[in-house]
């Protein structure tokens, strides 16, 4: 990655947010900033200068004014044939511009406004704050570029036409709106994390960018509401999960399950930060769903070897998570933890009780297959692995499930 590329990734969101705030128009701001980065590549053959951000901001503002002037000049020409248009002066005081205002918080609330469809909230957040290209976002969400481009155009049009503001919501609305932003952030993270091992090399980079972006957004939210236990817990959860990223894929690109992962490859810095944030969140009061999920991830992180995992503790945490958020998927995870804490015989009835809601979910079949195999019911286990294989969509998972089915003689 060149230095300008890195600068692009780091500065895009902040610069774009400031430009959108200053000029009130997504497209104008986006085009001007793209031109400014293009100009930077020309202007900085020896790499970015120290005041790169200010240079980019100033250049982008010039580009905006150029565009507005061109539009205005055209109108002027029609009106006053050929009369020179007066130059618009732009302040380019380098000191003043070093203070590029950080407007990203306003923008994240605009991008995640509940008046926009959820998929558009996600796309717009990644495009404007993360600086991912339309093609990259389309790739990450497995939709054609044209579909993604349309989604972004429609979202920007609705912001303009319906008057969705660039503001951090007031105290009355903040809790509700913050919940919405957190869901978008976690969705972006999961999209990056769950699919990261599917991707070919280039895609893996984009997918990891999604995780990094989600973590960065959570940090930004935490700066807004430093006393929010939910934001702390969400950031903790993402860090504790992201810490395992490198260990969950082997050299051949195959999925490595938690018990088999090389724990030396877990990111200690992320784990420590996650633990610290989780402790702080739990000290603030009753835990929410993110806190329970983070606590479960933390219990895994604390075990030096898979065999040291405190499964009874994890099963208890799933109990409490289920009480807050009684979904079949939480129940499935709880049953898997029970199978480790109390043995497969205790887990099987829990799994069988989920047959109806999860019949089409490959991980339910896989969990049942695992429990059946451990009970010595090989034929049924093989059959369940085969069902899981039929329902799974991503390649590494399909390879894993096919291998398990074969090993059990299906």
């Amino acid at each position, binding site marked *: 990655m060149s230095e300008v590329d890195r600068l692009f990734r780091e500065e895009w969101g902040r610069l774009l947010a400031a430009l959108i705030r200053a000029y009130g128009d997504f497209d104008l701001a986006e085009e001007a900033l793209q031109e400014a980065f293009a100009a930077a590549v020309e202007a900085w053959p020896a790499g970015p200068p120290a005041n790169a951000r200010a240079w980019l901001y100033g250049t982008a503002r010039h580009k905006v004014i150029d565009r507005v002037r061109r539009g205005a000049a055209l109108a002027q020409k029609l009106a006053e044939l050929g009369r020179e248009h007066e130059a618009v002066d732009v302040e380019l005081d380098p000191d003043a511009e070093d203070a590029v205002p950080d407007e990203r918080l306003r923008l994240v609330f605009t991008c995640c*406004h509940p*008046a926009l469809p959820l998929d558009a909230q996600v796309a717009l957040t990644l495009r404007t704050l993360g600086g991912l290209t339309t093609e990259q976002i389309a790739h990450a969400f497995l939709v054609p570029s044209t579909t993604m481009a349309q989604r972004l155009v429609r979202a920007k049009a609705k912001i303009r*036409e*319906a*008057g*969705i*503001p660039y*503001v951090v*919501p007031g105290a*009355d*609305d903040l809790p509700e709106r913050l919940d919405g932003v957190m869901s978008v952030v976690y969705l972006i993270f999961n999209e990056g994390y769950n699919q990261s091992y599917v991707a070919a090399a280039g895609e893996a980079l984009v997918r990891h960018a999604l995780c990094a972006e989600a973590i960065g957004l959570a940090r930004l939210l935490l700066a807004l509401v430093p006393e929010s236990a939910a934001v702390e817990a969400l950031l903790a959860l993402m860090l504790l999960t992201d810490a395992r990223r490198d260990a969950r894929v082997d050299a051949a690109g195959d999925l490595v399950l938690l018990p088999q992962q090389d724990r030396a490859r877990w990111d200690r810095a992320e784990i420590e930060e996650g633990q610290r944030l989780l402790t702080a969140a739990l000290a603030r009061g009753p835990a929410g769903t993110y806190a329970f999920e983070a606590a479960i991830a933390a219990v895994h992180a604390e075990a030096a070897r898979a065999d040291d995992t405190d499964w009874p503790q994890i099963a208890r945490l799933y109990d409490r998570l289920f009480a807050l958020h009684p979904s079949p998927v939480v129940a499935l995870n709880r049953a898997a933890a029970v199978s480790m804490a109390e043995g497969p015989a205790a887990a099987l009835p829990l799994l069988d009780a989920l047959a109806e809601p999860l019949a089409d979910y490959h991980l339910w079949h896989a969990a049942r297959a695992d429990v059946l195999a451990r009970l010595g019911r090989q034929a049924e286990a093989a059959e369940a692995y085969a069902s899981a294989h039929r329902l799974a969509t991503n390649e590494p998972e399909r390879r894993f499930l096919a291998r398990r089915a074969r090993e059990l003689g299906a």
Partner: protein
Amino acid sequence: MKYLLLIYENEKRFEKGYEASELGEYHAFKKEFGSKLIAGHALKLTNTATSVRVRDGKRLTTDGPFAETKEQLGGFYLCEADDLDEAITIAGKIPAARFGTIEVRPIMIFS
């Protein structure tokens, strides 16, 4: 910006007239947002509605509302708000929001 706040709710509640306490709530709402409200009216029940369309130059008049649905357009406010968030805040304070749905639509400006 101007927004039209369309009030949809099941009109069965009003077949026997309006409750005094609810009318009181509407008065309080109008007082609170008086400076923002440009116009607003309740509509008579949909059994008083007539639909008109012209096809191939011929006018066709039928009885009843545009669409038969579980909730009906029962009234509206036209308001002036700084942005969608303010319009949403006002919409959320309309007493009917508790029973039905308020649709918030920006007014088109032709320039």
